[in-house]
């Protein structure tokens, strides 16, 4: 199959923007339904954009556990939809749905679309755990639950362990992902876990599924999160500096996503394919990016994606995530909110929200508010301080479904 030709006029670089972001609190016990959470987050995103409900006529959501579909949320907000779609899926969804939103607006199917995720990921349906019905096994079930394979940590362990074998990646290097994200979370008032942790804290936390300790795993939370996407000409009338979509990849796959361990070196993720779309379409490369959002369901997912999208050489992810490059104040900070490891698990969308705020130069950290209601960023990255990256113009987000598929987006600060 030929490579995607990014030089033609077909792609939409610079023609669409994220104009609104919103969320609920990240909690472990929301006391609300996903319908209520979703309504709150979508309304916050529309308000943030400076739009009204009459401006929104498209809506999409995704879910891998619990959710409430978009026509219900729209109805509760008084929005009449010209387009909606609710898809199955988790961490590979946000960026893919941004691309779909661009496509359906371009096709004239709607004018402005909301993408949201609403879940009680802690109090209702936990990943791999409670809520999975029954203890019986089918023939297909013997291949996974018959051998005690029933969570994401179990599913991904072969990839992570083989990476350590192939490249000499160490537990200490991997733990640095959590350490750095915890530093970032310490300046994020929204984060579930704001306590800074050390490498020893990670390595001394109980083993979940070798090579993953408890603190290598993200924090399950209840929340809803939302984005508003529209054409760049409409975006210029919105409240904030538009965040312009330069390139998007949606659920790009390795061969055989169900049993991808048959194919190729298993210590790679789908980014090795996705980057061949992402960077040519963006017209830039990873070296141009100033802040990243690499999905951190686990410490290791961040490492693998940064490596496979080309932010360092293949096999050098352990070095890259542990040498300070990804820390605020470093060469290219990653997950400045603290990500799923610390802020809370949202299936990826919160990392896009964070980078939208980064590109607006208005991250909601602990810096004092100025007279114009905007934070006066100090760029002092100590605890309870700033987490704004200085003068950031370009960001990339990488969403992880499994090692075998993922999505990505490149975003630029607009004018």
């Amino acid at each position, binding site marked *: 199959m030929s490579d995607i030709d990014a030089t033609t006029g077909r792609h939409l670089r610079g023609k669409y923007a994220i104009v609104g972001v919103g969320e609920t609190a990240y909690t472990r016990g929301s006391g609300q339904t996903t319908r209520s959470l979703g309504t709150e987050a979508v309304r916050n995103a529309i308000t943030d954009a400076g739009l009204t409900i009459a401006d929104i006529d498209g809506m999409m959501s995704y879910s891998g556990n619990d959710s409430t579909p978009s026509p219900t949320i729209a109805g509760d907000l008084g929005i009449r939809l010209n387009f909606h779609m609710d898809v199955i899926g988790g961490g590979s969804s946000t960026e893919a749905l941004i691309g779909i939103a661009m496509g359906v607006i371009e096709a004239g199917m709607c004018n402005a679309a909301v993408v949201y995720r609403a879940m009680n990921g802690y109090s209702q349906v936990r990943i791999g755990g409670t809520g999975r019905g029954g*203890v*019986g096994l*089918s023939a297909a079930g*013997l291949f996974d639950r*018959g051998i*005690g394979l029933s969570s994401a940590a179990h599913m991904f362990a072969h990839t992570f362990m083989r990476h350590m074998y192939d490249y000499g990646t160490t537990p200490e290097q991997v733990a640095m992902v959590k350490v750095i994200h915890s530093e970032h979370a310490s300046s994020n008032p929204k984060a579930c876990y704001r306590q800074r942790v050390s490498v020893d804290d990670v390595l001394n936390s109980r083993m979940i*599924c070798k090579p993953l300790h408890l603190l290598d795993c993200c924090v399950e939370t209840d929340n809803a999160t939302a984005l508003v996407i529209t054409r760049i000409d409409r975006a210029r009338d919105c409240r904030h500096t538009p965040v312009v979509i330069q390139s998007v990849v949606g659920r790009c796959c390795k061969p055989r996503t169900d*049993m991808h361990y048959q194919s*190729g070196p298993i210590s790679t993720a789908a980014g090795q394919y996705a980057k061949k779309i992402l960077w040519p379409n963006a017209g830039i490369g990873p070296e141009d990016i100033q802040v990243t959002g690499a999905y951190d369901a686990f410490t290791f997912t961040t490492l693998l994606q940064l490596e496979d999208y080309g932010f360092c050489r293949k096999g050098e992810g352990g070095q890259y995530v542990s040498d300070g490059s990804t820390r605020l104040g470093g060469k290219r900070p990653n997950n400045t909110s603290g990500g799923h490891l610390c802020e809370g698990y949202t299936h990826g969308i919160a990392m896009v929200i964070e980078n939208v705020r980064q590109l607006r130069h208005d991250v909601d950290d602990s810096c004092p508010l100025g007279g114009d209601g905007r934070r006066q960023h100090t760029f002092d990255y100590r605890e309870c301080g700033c987490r704004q990256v200085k003068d950031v113009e370009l960001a990339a987000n990488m969403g992880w479904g499994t090692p075998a598929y993922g999505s990505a987006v490149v975003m630029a600060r607009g004018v």
Partner: protein
Amino acid sequence: MDKVGEYLGMQIHFDDLDRDNVEFFRHCGRHQLHLQRCSDCLLKRYPPTTACPYCGAPGVTWEPVAGHGTLYSYGEIHHAIQPAFRPFTPYLLLLVELDEQRNTPGEDDGLRLQGNLVTPEGELGSVDLIERVGIGTRLRIVYKDLGGEFALPQWTIDEEAEQPEPWRYPG
């Protein structure tokens, strides 16, 4: 199909519609590892599928495979999600590369089966047993009968093979 067996207290019910998987476990019940082989490209595959994941062709025969392999990667599960597995932690989740069809059809491709480390009798392994196993360990297939005509394929240390020093997670 009615209940076909039981494993660790979990009731097993096969659906006749799932004919590819049912056939796989029926061979296992005879203590034979059989994999589907594509009639067009002649490659064997795992797990069972209705079309060939290498060329898309539908034609298939079931072919015997020796059931020897090398540990390609693993996870060591300390936090079991399913109640049935909680008494057996830590247990190993194995990815075993068969000796057949290595580096085929592409470099680094292969036939890699999942399973647990078990004793030669098919019981989940003790800590002493799992500490002997790492990437590179030579393994052989064993079958855990599920009652009736089906069995679960599992893996045990191949005591007759020459064993390399395995690679294990540090610490």
